[in-house]
């Protein structure tokens, strides 16, 4: 076996601690963690909690980069702890803190309530005029692969909040909507199934909306899923301006095709065969 993979490193974790119920101010704790190649920052935190200090608090869930729970500041860069291998960052020390621009509940756990409130404010769901049909769909809504491509990357957002922590405007303007909500507003406005642009523009086109973005692009720099929120925000500005100048192409939400009658629609390929015996 490769000897390099067997080698163990002693890495010092400097972790920013804070318990608002007991502490008057944040402070730093140091722990030594035995690290093998391939070990993630998240695994290091588990080792600390299991063997050294069980009061250490942070959020995690999937440990595979899809839930967005374990976002934190690692050696000055925002990242998911489960997605970050320790030895890719440092072979001597890690400095870990909570996501900036949020109040702290405890240690590495930020209060993400403002993030979710702002997300709700942009109405992040398909909005159509046929309200009854939204609740009880009577058919499928047609969308071409090209139409899907225009917003698909913005659907990859896992709401981890790293973009909100990296944003310099969020640091100064607490009322700024932030990269994630504006990106999701654009995602739904661009979806051809949606007809909610004129309602969302009343939220995104305000004095603390898309126009407060100065294109630092740190949000795109830290996004773990390649969403590129800076791009979405500039596209949102473009659409708001074109709408103001009456140059925006008005599109009707795509029409339904077919109905749930059981009749197959032409051109849709058969599903692949089952790989498990259906009995």
């Amino acid at each position, binding site marked *: 076996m490769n000897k390099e993979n067997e080698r163990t490193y002693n890495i010092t974790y400097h972790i920013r601690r804070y318990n608002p119920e007991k502490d008057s101010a944040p402070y730093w704790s140091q722990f030594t963690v035995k690290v093998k190649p391939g070990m993630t920052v998240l695994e290091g935190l588990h080792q600390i909690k299991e063997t050294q200090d069980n009061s250490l608090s942070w959020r995690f869930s999937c440990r595979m980069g899809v839930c967005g729970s374990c976002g934190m500041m690692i050696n000055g860069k925002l990242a998911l702890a489960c997605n970050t291998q320790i030895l890719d960052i440092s072979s001597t020390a890690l400095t870990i803190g909570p996501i900036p621009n949020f109040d702290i509940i405890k240690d590495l756990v930020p209060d993400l309530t403002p993030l979710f409130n702002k997300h709700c404010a942009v109405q992040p769901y398909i909005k159509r005029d046929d309200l009854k049909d939204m609740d009880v769909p009577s058919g499928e809504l047609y969308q071409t692969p090209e139409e899907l491509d225009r917003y698909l990357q913005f659907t990859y957002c896992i709401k981890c909040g790293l973009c909100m922590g990296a944003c310099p*405007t969020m640091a*100064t*303007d*607490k*009322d*700024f909507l932030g990269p994630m909500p504006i990106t999701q507003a654009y995602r739904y406005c661009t979806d051809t199934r949606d007809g909610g642009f004129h309602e969302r*523009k009343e939220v995104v*086109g*305000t*004095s*603390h*909306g898309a*126009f*407060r973005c100065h294109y630092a692009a740190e949000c795109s720099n830290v996004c773990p899923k390649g969403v590129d929120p800076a791009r979405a925000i500039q596209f949102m*500005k473009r659409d*708001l*301006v074109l*709408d*103001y*100048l009456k140059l925006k192409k008005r599109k009707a939400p795509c029409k339904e095709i077919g109905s749930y009658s059981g009749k197959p629609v032409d051109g849709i390929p058969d599903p692949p065969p089952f790989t498990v015996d259906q009995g």
Partner: protein
Amino acid sequence: MNETSYWTWHIITGLLVLILLGMHMLIMHLDGILGWFSPAEGEAVSWDNVFSRSKHVGFTLTYVLLLGAALYHGLYGLRTILFELSPPVRLQKFINVTFWVGGVFLFIVGTYGSLAIFKQ
């Protein structure tokens, strides 16, 4: 005006300032090489040349346009800086009113000055 309209005009006036200020730079500071719009002897800033340009209707219009564009662009930029400090809503309204009133006042004063020379 809502924020989209404010920002759109910020972009438009920014482009106007770029073009008109660019013209100003060429006329006033490359006069030795280009000599544009400086019919009298001497530098572009000599009294005769300045007076000659001020009597030209096209120039008077560009002065007024540059004044309006620069005032709008600058004041909106300053407003943006102040708004990012999260002032309370009442203070935001006060800033809006003050900047509009002050900006319009300065525009009127500057336009009056430009027209006063033009009419001489």
